[in-house]
């Protein structure tokens, strides 16, 4: 019961802030709504029992990536007026139609696929045991998925070097 209240509240806040992200007039406000969105997504992960991922979401996504966006927005936005929409109506109507079709399709797949008898029995009963969540994730990362882990570290190194080179003045 309390889980249902928490889920619906968080879902409403997540979707509300997401809509505000794409419709805000000022880019800085968009970025701030994105931060709020990510914080509520982290709360949703905590509700699902993935505490490690929730904190990682806050540290990396909300506290790292979006700070990067904010810096770039501030550097770019210093004297700009809000963007001028060129012919917004035609594109946005098509976009809305595509979005509604996609949402209807995915929603139908989710609800129909879940109504099949094999899956209805196991609802989202108990989240994973709390004290073992970090250990489980860590164990998987360092044994079964060690190669993707190392490749991800190489990826981040390459991205770091690339970003430093791209941001230099004498490109």
């Amino acid at each position: 019961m309390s889980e249902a209240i928490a889920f619906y509240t968080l879902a409403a806040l997540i979707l509300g802030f997401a809509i505000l992200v794409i419709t805000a007039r000022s880019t800085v406000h968009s970025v701030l709504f994105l931060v709020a969105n990510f914080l509520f997504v982290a709360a949703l992960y905590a509700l699902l029992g993935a505490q490690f991922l929730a904190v990682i979401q806050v540290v990396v996504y909300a506290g790292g990536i979006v700070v990067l966006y904010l810096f770039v927005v501030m550097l770019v936005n210093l004297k700009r007026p809000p963007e001028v929409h060129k012919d917004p109506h035609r594109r946005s109507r098509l976009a809305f139609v595509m979005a509604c079709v996609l949402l209807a399709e995915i929603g139908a797949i989710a609800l129909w696929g879940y109504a099949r008898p094999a899956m209805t029995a196991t609802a989202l009963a108990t989240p994973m045991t709390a004290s073992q969540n970090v250990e489980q994730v860590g164990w998987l990362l360092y044994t079964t998925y060690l190669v993707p882990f190392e490749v991800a570290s190489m990826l981040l190194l390459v991205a770091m070097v690339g970003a430093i080179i791209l941001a230099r003045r004498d490109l």
Partner: protein
Amino acid sequence: MITPAHYTVLSAALFVIGMIGVLVRRNIIVIFMSIELMLNAVNINLVAYSSQLHNAVGQVFAIFVICVAAAEAAIGLGIILAFYRNKETINIDEMNLMRW
């Protein structure tokens, strides 16, 4: 009773909102942020099923998605900055250097 189907519908709605942002907005930074919304939608789906099947693989996958999103954000913003220094614009309608 909250089933993974609920989480999938939430994730689909968030994905669709991100998609609308990418298609409608002209400011390239807002387009990048909408891409981040889509990646988050995928993460929510992964974690919901990981929680239902009591297997942490979904969360490990979500961690890798966050890693890749970080790398992509860094490079993308570097490209935006380099472009802005040259053409003084962040409106993608004006980023048409390679058009004939």
